[in-house]
């Protein structure tokens, strides 16, 4: 075969490849060119009749043809594959506006979330969480907190009593989380640094009071903690909790039986337009909102807890968890906290993966 013959063969084979309009047609071309009885294969077999240089030359030429044809078939095959895929995909559609299969996720109640937020903040300050029973005895709820028997808080209109099982004083539903202070002092030695969140009860029921609510209590007892520390700790907490670095915090002298000196704590707010907002709005007379009671632990309370008041001192404070939740998250009505209205729980609740942490932000 002469060089022009070989060149002609290549052209005709490439033309056949180019004109193959299906994978089957392309396969037929491949067989007719490269199959056992194909044109190129036949020429290859004929090389044996040549000799020396001629055979070498013709062999090389044929190999070039073979490579070119194979490459053309590969390219043609890819092109035909692409067309076929395109044709298939053109038939495969889904209505992407269909709603997906539901994935139900519940929510955490704001009381749980806010409690954990408080734990995250106080945890950074070295507090640990203590707990106590809801049904308390008279001693832990009142006497040990220096609340004398005749104190109005002990009367029927404030405290829930249970029917006494025998001659002993009737058990009470704890009216505050403060009995946990006493239980902690009874079972541990200073230095003490605890917080105690939990359910509390008072026989009150109106627009702003519910018979059950939540408090969080803090207690620090050591040899050196003074009112400056009390102020520092509360200011640090309030600013972190509300995430307002310049939140004004005011301390007013007040009176509680279990602390001396005692102070009430106000934070800055605005009531403009009838809407309550927490923040720094200047120190106008109307720009304060009371949020907790605090003070230095009364020496008698330390004594009741079995701690030497001539050696140890410290502070305590307590606030309503529901209340700070309302303030932080703009929840208008306390009573709705306990109604378990599914619309409310979903609206004000928190997704379970949002675990509060000071490192990640509350």
């Amino acid at each position, binding site marked *: 075969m002469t060089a022009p013959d070989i060149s002609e063969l290549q052209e005709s084979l490439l033309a056949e490849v180019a004109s193959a309009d299906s994978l089957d047609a392309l396969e037929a071309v491949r067989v007719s060119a490269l199959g056992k009885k194909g044109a190129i294969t036949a020429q290859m077999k004929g090389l044996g009749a040549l000799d020396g240089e001629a055979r070498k030359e013709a062999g090389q030429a044929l190999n070039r043809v073979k490579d070119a044809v194979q490459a053309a078939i590969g390219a043609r095959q890819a092109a035909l594959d692409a067309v076929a895929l395109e044709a298939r995909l053109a038939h495969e559609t889904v209505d992407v506006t269909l709603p997906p299969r539901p994935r139900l996720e519940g929510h955490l109640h704001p009381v749980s979330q806010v409690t954990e937020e408080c734990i995250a903040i106080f945890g950074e300050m070295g507090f640990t969480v203590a707990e106590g029973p809801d*049904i308390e005895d008279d001693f832990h709820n009142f006497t040990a907190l220096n609340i004398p028997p*005749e104190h109005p808080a002990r009367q029927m209109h404030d405290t829930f009593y249970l029917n006494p099982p025998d001659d002993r004083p009737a058990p009470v539903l704890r009216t505050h989380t403060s009995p946990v202070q006493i239980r902690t002092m009874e079972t541990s030695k200073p230095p003490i640094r605890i917080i105690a969140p939990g359910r509390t009860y008072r026989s009150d029921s109106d627009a702003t009071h519910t018979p059950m609510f939540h408090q969080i209590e803090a207690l620090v007892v050591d040899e050196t903690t003074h009112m400056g520390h009390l102020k520092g700790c509360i200011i640090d907490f309030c600013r972190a909790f509300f995430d307002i670095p310049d939140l004004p915090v005011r301390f007013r002298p007040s009176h509680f039986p279990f602390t001396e000196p005692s102070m009430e704590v106000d934070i800055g707010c605005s009531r403009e337009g009838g809407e309550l907002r927490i923040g720094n709005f200047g120190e106008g007379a109307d720009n304060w909102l009371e949020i907790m009671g605090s003070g230095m632990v009364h020496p008698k309370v330390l004594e009741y807890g079995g701690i030497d008041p001539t050696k140890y001192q410290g502070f305590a404070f307590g606030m309503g968890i529901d209340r700070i939740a309302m303030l932080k998250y703009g929840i208008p009505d306390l009573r709705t906290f306990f109604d378990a209205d599914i619309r409310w729980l979903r609206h004000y609740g928190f997704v379970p993966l949002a675990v509060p942490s000071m490192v990640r932000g509350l």
Partner: protein
Amino acid sequence: MKFTLGWLKDHLETEASVGEIVETLIEIGLEVDTVDDPAAELSAFRVAHVVSAEQHPDADRLRVCRVDTGDGTVQVVCGAPNARAGMKGVFAPVGTWVPGIEVELKAAKIRGIESSGMLVSEREMGLSDEHDGIIDLPEDAPIGVPFAEVLGIDDPVIDIELTPNRPDCTGVRGIARDLAAAGLGMLKSFDSAVPVAGSYDSPVNWEIAGDGNACSYVVGRHFKGLTNGPAPKWLQDRLRAVGLRPISALVDVTNYVSLDLGRPLHVFDAGKLKNKTLTMRRARDGEDFMALVEKEYTLDNEMTVIGDGDTAEALAGVMGGLESSCTEETTEVFLEVALFDPVSVATTGRKLQMESDARYRFERGVDPESAEWGAEVAARLILEFCGGETSMPTSAGAMPDWQRSVELRNDRVATLGGVDVPAERQAEILEALGFETERLNGRMNAAVPSWRPDIGGEADLVEEITRIHGFDRIAPVSLDRDAALPAVAITPEQRRTSTVRRALAANGLDEAVTWSFMGRAHAELFGEFSETLLLANPISSELDAMRPSILGNLLLAAGRNADRGFADVGLFELGPAYQDATPDGQQLVAAGVRHGHVQLAHWSDKARVADALDAKADALAALEAAGAPAANVQISRDAPDWYHPGRSGALRLGKNILAYFGEVHPAVLRGLNVRGPAVGFEVFLDNLPPRKDKGSSRLPLRLESLQPVRRDFAFLVNAEVQAGDLLRAARGADRDVITDVALFDVYEGKNVEEGKKSLAIQATLQPTDATFTDAEIEEFSAKIVAAVEKATGGALRG
């Protein structure tokens, strides 16, 4: 406790403004509730001169007045019959809010004549019902001056909410003393206590019965030849300003001294007393008392009365009686200046639900010394206002010994109060508050004044010094920690609780917080009810017992949601349930309910109503999150009787019950009046085994290089055979090789004979050293079939 600025200035020499005074009151712990400034509210109303008043051309009853307001002359059309030229009246310009008729004045034409502003009546100003004509002032009233000033109601009223420890501030003088100590002026001297000489022996005397009544000491004085008219205007104005109605000079004096000095008094009309001796005694059980407020009370033996013979003429420390009260005809009186036990007065007042100014003061603790000076102050005022003469004082009992000293180490102000206050300044503050101090080396003795029963120890003195020095001068100090990193704040149990809560929410349940109480009738649906859980004073019968189970409240909540049109809910709560009233009787429980559909109708799936196994899944999710050994948990059919007997179960570790789950018993739903069905679970977190501390390291992971083999089997078993038994048998057939058994079909019906069912499982066989041969696989399969047959009597389906 209400007082006016003018009243305060009787005792306090000060130039401070109302604003400064209010701010200081707050800073020293006298919380200001409200400040009312009537002058500010009525500031637009000013004295004006009616220059001329002419007949309106088109209206008989109207006059056209030219009015000099002090700011110029305006024309006003006025309909009052007494409007006339030359008179002085009260003028309100355009733009004024007129409270009595609730109108903001606008310039107007009245019958064609321009009118700018208004001459007003007392009713229009909201001062009284007087509306016969416009206010007609004396000729010398100065034009342009605010009318409130002329009227003497320009005195701002301050109302403070007094903490129970400050009896001294139940009188204006005590408040003045606190303000003076805080540097807001000088406390004026108090000279009205100078003794008033008596001219005769009192014909009425005191006796204190030895029955342990509330009175420790009482002073009295008799007065005769009195004329009980109205009190002077200044005193009436004072009383009115703080919300009291003036009655007569005698009664007003007692109220005034009570408010001014915190010393409650009572005057008996001596002419109406039947006996020569008034007796402090306990009341008889069931004794009747007709109070001054014309209401009858029934007393008991715990209360103290002032008896005139057999009749109770006053309820000690709370209120006088109607019978012996003073009237305008009264000419002789007997004055009571007593000391009563605070607790007794408080208890009596509370029992009878009687509020009074006397109770307010006695229950906080009245200054014991005031028994003596109170009699002098009252005598001086009574004689001044009513004439007549007074007897020598008469008394019974003895003044309690109130003198005491408290020691203060001066450095405690810094070490407890957190602020450095020099010792001289400490003494100065205490002296200003009425203490007498004696300075010693590094400490001082402070003699407590008679009016401060609240001061008991060193901490009280630190409070006095720091509150007057100013809490804002205590520098805040952030808490420091022992180490750079904080210790873990919560216990493993608390962390477990938190994880369970988040796991249940992640499982699709919404967290609720419901009452710890429920109604007894509902509580009794949840097992044997302990009477110790009943509240003695519930707020309603629906909330009269501590809940023995959380489920009831959650089911009620689901019912409420269904009533609102949201029947498909999943709720859980993590909180207490109570077995009895002891601290150990409180359990921590995670409970949940699913009501309605767990899966709503969707284009890809059919709707599905919650069933017992949804509740089981929730309970298992909670246990798994809690780190319980879920693989070892056994399932039994013995859930308590608030669950459906055939569709419920218990999850347990031996005898230890970890959880119940299942459909709620229809009778319980009926008892709660909730439409079912509903399913629920209770996980008892306190029953979970404590997590063993095995360190943080996990067991080594073993990854087999050989592929597992899976084989399917369908067994025909009796219908009552439990799937769990079959699965356990299959799994146990060769624990080394069979790593998993999954149930993939449960079938009853066509091609399965009556009373039987088909259970299809897939077993996973894991080779370790070499691929299984066919013979080996056959061998394992035979083991599974044999084990299942042995445990359940089932056979491979043909």
